């Protein structure tokens, strides 16, 4: 059949929703499913508390800008990670891929003379292609060789970081084009939005639209929900998984460029917990580690909760180590809520 629409079908009658109980249960499930709303409220409460305690220091445009700049690279990683986790996968390699891509970008830009917008563009493309290549390796090993994602990306985490150190001799490379640092790194779009934040915003919006509104997003959910069912309706599950890991790698490459713009060097040792931070942000944002459920908006909130905590604690002169403790607690709580939701649904 030409497969554009089901013919008006002879159909089978659904059982009348059996009584109020299942209806109530369903409504409860759906409310809990809206954990994005809950976590968003939590972020607003945090912002309110810090603003009330230190209005002069916390609730300023400048401070919010600082929080956003710090969150920008993590947001870019988090968007890719959201797709990966919705397929019921994981990508531990993003921090290493970020560093490796940054190293390649610096090498390329240096070779081209290290000045001018053309060089910046070429460097960005090089970083993204490098990340893409790592992502393709991850995806191929996971989808085709059927090695668990945890192991594959743990392997490329080590290989990527080791590779970066081999190329650089373990010494951070400096020397990025002046334009990258003075305009992208510290400049602002329309004098208001830092360029780094603008880039992260564009990635976020495109990611959210792709996830919610396109076939690519639909397949991402379907595979995470029931890969075998996806396979049986003819979805090329392997190819889609490779694409999703490639996306995550490519965004890690872009985050590498953002990091260069911000820190002006390759910060090789500075990204060992990026992967866990990105995963925590995604999971806090309500995306299920079991796959099939998740939103980019949730990830945005999940990125900002740790960032706001960090910033607020510094301003309140609370030991910043408390931030890590708090994020750990929130992360475990988020996964626990996810478990509860799943159990509530599967009890039927």
């Amino acid at each position: 059949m030409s497969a554009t629409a089901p013919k008006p079908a002879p159909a089978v009658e659904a059982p009348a929703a059996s009584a109020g109980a299942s209806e109530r249960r369903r409504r409860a499930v759906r409310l809990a499913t809206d954990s994005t709303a809950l976590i968003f409220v939590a972020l607003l409460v945090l912002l309110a508390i810090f603003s009330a305690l230190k209005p002069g220091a916390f609730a300023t445009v400048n401070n919010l800008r600082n929080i956003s700049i710090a969150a920008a690279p993590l947001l870019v990683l988090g968007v890719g990670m959201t797709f990966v986790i919705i397929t019921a996968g994981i990508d531990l390699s993003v921090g290493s891929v970020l560093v490796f891509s940054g190293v390649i970008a610096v090498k390329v830009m240096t070779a081209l003379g290290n000045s001018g917008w053309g060089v910046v563009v070429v460097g960005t493309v090089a970083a993204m292609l490098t990340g893409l290549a790592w992502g393709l390796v991850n995806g191929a090993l996971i989808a085709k060789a059927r090695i668990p994602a945890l192991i594959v990306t743990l392997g490329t985490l080590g290989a990527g970081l080791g590779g970066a150190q081999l190329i650089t001799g373990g010494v951070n490379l400096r020397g990025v084009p002046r334009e990258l640092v003075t305009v992208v790194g510290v400049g602002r779009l329309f004098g208001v939005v830092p360029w780094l934040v603008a880039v992260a915003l564009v990635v976020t919006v495109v990611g959210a639209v792709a996830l919610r509104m396109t076939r690519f997003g639909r397949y991402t959910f379907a595979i995470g929900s029931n890969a075998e069912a996806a396979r049986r309706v003819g979805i090329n599950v392997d190819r889609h998984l490779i694409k999703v890991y490639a996306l995550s790698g490519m965004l890690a490459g872009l985050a590498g460029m953002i990091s260069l713009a911000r820190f002006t060097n390759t910060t090789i040792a500075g990204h060992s917990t990026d992967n866990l931070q990105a995963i925590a942000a995604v999971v806090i944002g309500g995306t299920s580690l079991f796959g099939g459920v998740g939103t980019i908006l949730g990830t945005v909130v999940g990125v900002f909760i740790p960032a706001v905590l960090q910033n607020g604690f510094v301003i309140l002169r609370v030991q910043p180590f408390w931030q890590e403790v708090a994020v750990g607690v929130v992360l475990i709580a988020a996964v626990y809520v996810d478990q509860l939701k799943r159990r509530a649904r599967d009890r039927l």
Partner: protein
Amino acid sequence: MTTPLLQAHGIVKNYGHVQALRGADFAVQAGEVVALIGDNGAGKSTLVKVLAGVTHPDGGEIRFSGRVVSLPSPTAARAMGIETVYQDLALAPDLDPAANLFLGRELVRPGLLGRLGFLDKSAMAERTRTAFAEMGAGVQSDTAPVGSLSGGQRQSIAVGRAAAWASKVVFMDEPTAALGVVQAGKVLELIRRVRDSGVAVVLISHNMPQVFEIADRIEVLRLGRRVARYRPAEVSMEDVVGAMTGAVVQEEVS
């Protein structure tokens, strides 16, 4: 007898040391309901998966309208108009009924947006409503994830999906297993309507009265082989059960 619409000959399928199919034969004509029956583990689901392109046989031949075909993927089978209700339903529990109905065949927006893969969600929801129009209750057009529905409702969605897309053959692997009497009756009614539209229906069921009520023919599978073929009008339930358990062997196997 005219050329069967779909015909399997000598299908072999091994899982390690388990011989799920040992030279199974099968045939179905357009516009008939064939009941494929057999004990647990006889190989019914495996045969269905082979004929749906999900599982690749180790041997044997499949003919569609008399021509030898290969079914390398579910897509290949679906392109021939073959749809399947799997025993495990094969639904995505986190997606809503419309997304499941159109899974793998999503409608996209017209023009450039469509080429970028933008989904036409309202069109899919609309057609899901029409496709499930006679399902009463309206549960199916809901936006709740399929996993939050009852087992019977889920089964109805899987059956409705297969019926909506099938143009030649629809396999139903125990489509009434989770259903109450009334719902099972609805499925049988649906099967008749699908058959009357000229589509071949292959029903797998352990419910003998149901089989005798709906089937135009019965094929019996035992230990991975077809052992008997009957017309319900010409045979007793005891004989059929005898064939399933090995007490009666009608077809000699080579």
